């Protein structure tokens, strides 16, 4: 199985809807806060890559606790972040270290 499919499997294992290389793991899969942090730790371990240099705040909303529901219903734009696609994560695996998407 090539790297792209392995990365699709990794992020798609919890998703009922089919995902593709263009799926955004932050905005489409609603991964955020502590969930994103622990998933990325798993990602580093499984694919043996280093994500040092990745600023999570650029791509993932922090753990908001109750404020999440306020944003969710009244200010959904606050939950939108710069897209981080499956395809880019596959490229990161190929390179072996984190780099910013073009």
């Amino acid at each position, binding site marked *: 199985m090539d790297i792209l499919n392995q990365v699709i499997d990794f992020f798609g294992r*919890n998703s*009922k809807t089919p995902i593709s290389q263009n799926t955004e793991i932050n905005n489409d899969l609603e*991964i*955020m*806060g502590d969930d994103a*942090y622990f998933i990325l730790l*798993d990602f580093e371990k499984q694919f043996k890559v280093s994500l*040092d240099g*990745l600023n999570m705040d650029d791509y993932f909303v922090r753990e*908001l606790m109750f404020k999440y529901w306020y944003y969710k219903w009244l200010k959904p734009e606050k939950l939108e972040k710069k897209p981080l696609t499956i395809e880019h994560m596959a490229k990161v695996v190929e390179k072996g270290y984190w780099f910013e998407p073009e």
Partner: protein
Amino acid sequence: MSVDPLTDLMPEHSGYNYVFNNPISLIDPFGLSPDTARVRPVPGQPDTYEPIDPEDNMPVVDVRPNGGSSSSSGLWSESGETGTTVERKWKVEGAYLTEEQFFELARQHDFIAHRVLRQEFGEQHAIDFMKYDVASAISDANDVGITVFEAVAPVPKVGLALKLGGSLMATTGMIKVSKKAFGLRVGLGGSKKALLSTVLAYKLGLRGSLGRKVPTFIGPRASSLETALGRNAIPIGGSAVGAGFLIDELNKKE
């Protein structure tokens, strides 16, 4: 025939009926109060009862003052021969108590039946009834896999433990702590804090992919077990506190 001496405890039922007019499901071997038929008399052995269901772990209980009998479950042991004075010991949390100690323990926990019976019929009849009552408690305890001691003794402590444990758990779901303080990697830029409940779940080994997204109380659906538990610590802890109050209330009514 006489009026059931425990009529006052069951005001919704007539004192002249037998087992609430439900002889298929209930029995009343002592003519006092109905109970579910978990035991039946052993043929040829007066005053001795055995479980109706062979899968039931209920011990054979001998209500004769000095009778010889055997325990099928190892809950108690005795020395001496039939017809002589024997010393029977009850197993409680791995230790053997004498029969007197065991029933004193049960008495401390204030069985209503024992209190009423002691007033109405004297100590011996009360103890005989309690043996039957305790046997039912043991059987119920076995059904849920807890020991006799847990079944009859620390009910107030269970309520208290649930209230305290639940409060603590709910509190951990409202506090953010430094990842570094718990030895978690902070190399990934961004928030250096995480929910205490999530961190504790991770540290306790309750981690990994769930294989599906799980709804959470204070955030979007979670993909990892630690996050699902962490974000749901408030409702889980709150439920435990509620269960603690319920147990305490039921205990007061008994």
